[in-house]
């Protein structure tokens, strides 16, 4: 339960409210992470929150890459952390995306807003071991064109011919010539091989529900649609009770679960 000390060695501004931090251990590093896992990040004296890991799992070093959106006191403190700031890190925790479930299959990554952060390691894993997978399709939605995370990387992804990138925004802006609409629109019309597709979906809960329902209609099996749940997390190890969603302790049994399991839970209000 004792955090490991990490120092901020890099800070990249992603959007008006989000930054990506590079963290390096001062003493012992935490174990290697799997795509979709999270850490508990502690800002001294302010508090601790769960933050997904957004780094490249194929890079073998002890640094951590985590994207933080300033939404509350702790995330604001972490967001504002300058290089040299020491933070506490526990983890990595939880069940991740398990990209290997999509070996020999088409990979469909669907991200809404900052939901792209925990999915970035999936995309990078597939790109690093491209031969293991068939098609790679990334669908990402944002409020406005300026609110996409990893915009430089998105440019690189869009230039590749082994990755199909579909970006869509809620509100267009001057100079935006891309799609305007919700992520379910490309999902409804993209050429898919539904039985051979594994989808990884992350974003606000209704966005994941709508996306999963669209994919179900297209014929993607529910147990091939993986979503990442979000609930209040205090301990990260299934002992504080906060993150319950019906039978699930989201920190321990998730955050990533199959839609086959999650669908009935997400359809109950205030569960």
């Amino acid at each position: 339960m004792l955090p490991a000390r990490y120092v901020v060695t890099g800070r990249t501004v992603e959007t008006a409210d989000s930054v990506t931090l590079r963290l390096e251990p001062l003493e012992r590093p935490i174990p290697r992470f799997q795509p979709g896992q999270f850490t508990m990040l502690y800002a001294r004296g302010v508090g601790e929150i769960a933050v997904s890991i957004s780094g490249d799992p194929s890079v073998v070093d002890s640094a951590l890459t985590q994207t933080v959106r300033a939404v509350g006191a702790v995330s604001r403190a972490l967001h504002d952390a300058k290089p040299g700031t020491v933070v506490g890190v526990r983890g990595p925790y939880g069940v991740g995306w398990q990209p290997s479930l999509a070996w020999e299959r088409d990979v469909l990554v669907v991200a809404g807003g900052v939901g792209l952060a925990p999915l970035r390691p999936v995309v990078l894993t597939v790109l690093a071991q491209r031969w293991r997978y068939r098609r790679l399709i990334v669908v990402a939605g944002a409020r406005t064109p300026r609110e996409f995370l990893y915009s430089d990387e998105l440019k690189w992804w869009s230039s590749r011919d082994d990755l199909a990138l579909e970006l869509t925004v809620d509100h267009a802006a001057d100079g935006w010539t891309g799609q305007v609409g919700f992520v379910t629109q490309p999902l409804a019309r993209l050429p898919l091989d539904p039985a051979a597709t594994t989808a990884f979906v992350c974003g606000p809960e209704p966005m994941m529900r709508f996306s999963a329902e669209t994919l179900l209609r297209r014929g993607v099996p529910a147990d091939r649609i993986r979503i990442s749940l979000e609930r209040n997390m205090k301990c990260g190890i299934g002992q504080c009770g906060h993150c319950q969603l019906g039978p699930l302790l989201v920190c321990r049994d998730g955050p990533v679960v199959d839609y086959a399991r999650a669908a009935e839970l997400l359809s109950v209000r205030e569960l």
Partner: protein
Amino acid sequence: MDAFGLDGLDELVRALIADGHRVIGPRRRDDAIVLDDVTGVADLPSGWGVEVAPGRYRLHRRGDDALFRHSAGPQSWKRFVHPPRRKLWETTDVGFAAAPDDERRLAFLGVRGCDLAALGVLGRVLGARSRPFIVAVDCTEPGGLCFCASTGTGPSVGPGYDLALTERLDDTGHWFLADAGSEDGERILAAVTRRPATADEVAGALRDVTAAAGRMGRQMPALDLRQLLHDSRQAQHWNDVAERCLTCGNCTMVCPTCFCTTTEDVTDLTGDHAERWEHWASCFEVDFSYLHGGSVRTSAASRYRQWLSHKLGTWHDQFGESGCVGCGRCIAWCPVGIDITAEVAALAAERSGDDVDV
């Protein structure tokens, strides 16, 4: 099995203390039987009994000098193995330091079957913290809100004790039947002046404990509760409970297995020294389910549903067993007398299509 009198019990407490234990047992304080340090038989609530009903708990003078016949009180042993508030660690510029553990080993005196089961449940959730020495007591006088017979956790104590006592008050006087359940138990028992119990004495105690199962004030409906709660997620009855429930969280505080906690971060004025504290939390608090921007469970109905569904249903999914041990505390200490067994019966009635008022 061995037998000893009140002097023997006193020797037992002193032997535990001499062995380095902090002995916790029942004491009378603030018109209730609470759990606190005891140093001998004189500290125990001799001749005090308890009368309980939904939303009600009163002490009364018994006609005898019984020490352990007061059913479940406002506290449970939870507070000693999972403290209401504890420091987790502190941090300065040089690193994080875990808060030191209390070195003294605890000994619990007078743990009834329900509470022994609860300690096991808690241990399976929180992992092995230091295990106390347990002197359990069989229950021969269940209270009006007890239902451990229907949860399979009493009235006789299950496994997990170091010593198990059965308190006897008969023509021969006030004495205890004792059984050691561990090597530690045998070692401590060896320090007590005792005699072997006769077969008749053992049979008599067994008869009384068995008979107690038939005198439970409450009964949990004999149903697959996990399935019932799963089937009841959209039940109307939650709204009915919400009309009465004050969402005060008393049930979660007195429950011997409710384990939820939250954390609190504090700093000194300079910000150089920070500490992290853990304290009990309740799923009835609105911000328990807080997610940036708002809480998931805001209605009283959803918060009561969470508590009951977790306790009796999803606990199975998470930890492989029920979270209820039938102690009845949540009924006694609910300010409006909500009765877990009656609510379950009402949910079962709703599922089967009957309209039953509770």
